[in-house]
């Protein structure tokens, strides 16, 4: 039971990071980045590549692996964040704020381009990114954990908390909230709306890249791993309410827990329960548990 709860919260916190990414772009631009999953997978491989390059350049034991891993995480977040900008410019800006769904296809297309390019570099196979604090299992009663599960749990909560704080206390955070609340009024108040939108894409892509490096030592990295993580992240955002960042985080944790507790009973029912929950929540609260209704002007 404890095993399932820790496992569920670990993956749930990653879903929460992805859900937060969906929330950021949705509130500022009314679009979603459907390439989010590919940013997760490619981010993991950028992390793997960084570790490889640094190990080759510095020698295996020059610095502790913990630092290499930290650098890899930063590199993945930066690389994916920077890639979020061309995504915004090419796939979102022409359509942002306009009615229609062209951005759905353009973001999916961007993801396919990204994945195919990565496939030609790294190939198909699953790779294991070593965990920064070792792969040993330590035990609490009957249950066993790996250090990386706690790393993910702690870091993800820290990042979620920091984001929550930044959105309320910093200038850029306030700008984002202003744009989310009313784009036209924000523009009239002198906020550079396109810049804020670009920042939202940068942040959400960086979150995806970072998530990739975080989960790679647990799930093993493959270029196909992102799809399902992003789908669960999206479900989390839908359950929690796309417009509410805290709701998205709660949604992620909820999905993670439902998933792992269902598996205790029957692993095959896991996905069924997750998506039943999505349907149930939507039927009762169409804007998610903590969401707010947005009127789309057409």
């Amino acid at each position, binding site marked *: 039971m404890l*095993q*399932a709860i820790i496992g569920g919260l670990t993956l749930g916190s990653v879903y929460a990071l992805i859900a937060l990414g969906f929330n950021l772009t949705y509130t500022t631009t009314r679009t979603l980045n459907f390439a989010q999953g590919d940013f997760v997978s490619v981010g993991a491989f950028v992390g793997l590549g960084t570790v490889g390059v640094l190990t080759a350049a510095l020698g295996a034991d020059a610095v502790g692996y913990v630092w290499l891993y930290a650098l890899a995480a930063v590199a993945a977040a930066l690389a994916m964040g920077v890639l979020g900008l061309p995504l915004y410019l090419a796939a979102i800006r022409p359509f942002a704020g306009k009615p229609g769904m062209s951005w759905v296809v353009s973001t999916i297309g961007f993801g396919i381009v990204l994945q195919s390019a990565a496939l030609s570099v790294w*190939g*198909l196979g*699953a790779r294991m990114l070593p965990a920064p604090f070792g*792969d040993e299992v330590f035990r609490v009663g*009957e249950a*066993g954990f790996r250090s990386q599960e706690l790393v993910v749990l702690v870091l993800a909560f820290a990042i979620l908390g920091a984001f929550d704080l930044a959105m309320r206390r910093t200038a850029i955070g306030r700008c984002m909230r202003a744009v989310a609340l009313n784009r036209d009024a924000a523009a009239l108040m002198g906020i550079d709306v396109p810049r804020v939108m670009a920042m939202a894409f940068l942040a959400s892509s960086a979150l995806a890249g970072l998530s990739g490096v975080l989960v790679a030592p647990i799930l093993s990295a493959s270029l196909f791993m992102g799809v399902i993580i992003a789908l669960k992240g999206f479900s989390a955002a839908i359950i929690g309410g796309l417009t509410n960042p805290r709701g998205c985080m709660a949604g992620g944790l909820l999905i993670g827990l439902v998933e792992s507790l269902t598996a205790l009973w029957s692993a095959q029912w896991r996905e069924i329960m997750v998506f039943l929950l999505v349907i149930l929540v939507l039927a009762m609260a169409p804007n998610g548990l903590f969401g707010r209704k947005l009127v789309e002007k057409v």
Partner: protein
Amino acid sequence: MKNTTSTGTASNNTAPARPRLTALLGAAAAVLMTASLQAQAADPIKIAYNGDISGSPSAESGQIGVLGIGAAVEDINKRGGVLGRPLEFLVRDDLGQPPKAIQNMTDLIDREKVSVVFGPTNSGNALAWKHIANQKRMPVLVSSASSTAITEGPSSGNYLFRVSMVDREQASALLAYVKKNPEAKAVGFFVETTGYGQAGLKDLEQIAALHDMKPVSIEKFDARDTDMTSQLSKAKAAGADTLVVWAQAAPLGHLVRSMEKLDYFPKVFTTWAASFSGFPEVAGPKLMEWPVFLTTSSERKSAEAESLFARIGPKLANPSMFWAASQAYDTVLLWAAAAEQAGDTKGEAVRAALESLNKPVAGMVKTYDKPFSATQHEGLTAADYHWSRWKDGKVVDFNDPVLAGLQPADFKK
């Protein structure tokens, strides 16, 4: 003056030019004639590989299979080809997708007019197009896909032959061992929810029934699952001391990682999937040595195998997948032997010859002495498999007294 000079020059040149031109024309004609004669005598025979070399995780075995076939084609062409004609090798990637595989198949048969098709990588794709091969009388030598149903054909004529693992045979071998092992008192079956895992479970259940063996636990997991602790807890509670696992490489790796989390280490017996790169990659250097699995050739024992390995080994990311090249190499040799015996490359003639090969064919995996018959289309069966395990990063032979005591009668299928 100018004119004179130019005429003079021209006339000076004309005299030697005429014979040169004639000689040139003559030479050209001779070259053309020789070429057309050569073309008639040695019009290449087209052969093809149709399988996944890029789309799915099993594409690895497809890529290596293509290297093996390429090496066999090179060797056969060096000794003069088949029926005096060189072989031309075409490669079609089906991306692991059945519709693409079907499209490739019809294109290869109808437009490219190939004489034989090798492959595929994924069982599902073989099942998707095997009716086309049988209808169009196209010999197919399966070099990788292992689903039992692939070589089950219509009574009107079955054109699919295989030199690879067969799931049913693997299940038969694994359960023969489990039944014989006095330490295996309670067995659990762990399978993927994919078609591969489900077909494997069916084979396992049927063969277990033949042995009068009842699994104490049957657990399933998704191929993308990374945490199987809940399933393992149930098997542990049921007292399973031996697990027979039917899964692809990466989930198999996650299964042993989950075993470590629970500190529950039942004996694990599994298929050749454990030799694919994804397994050691995910399981890590310590846990990867736990399962015992089957391969068609774990250690290279013959000089020929060593020499083939020297040629293509450097191109392999995972040298432990060399078996994929050996099997594929053998499929070409068997087809070539059949075509030579039939004196023809037509489908019916080659099929009949394959079913009654009158000379042994020395291949990489073994020497094939009458490998096929009208009812038997498997080049390799349970008794040919090697019991293997990972040791220090390499796949090595597994041996123990139980294995040594296995008799042909123990293999029920």
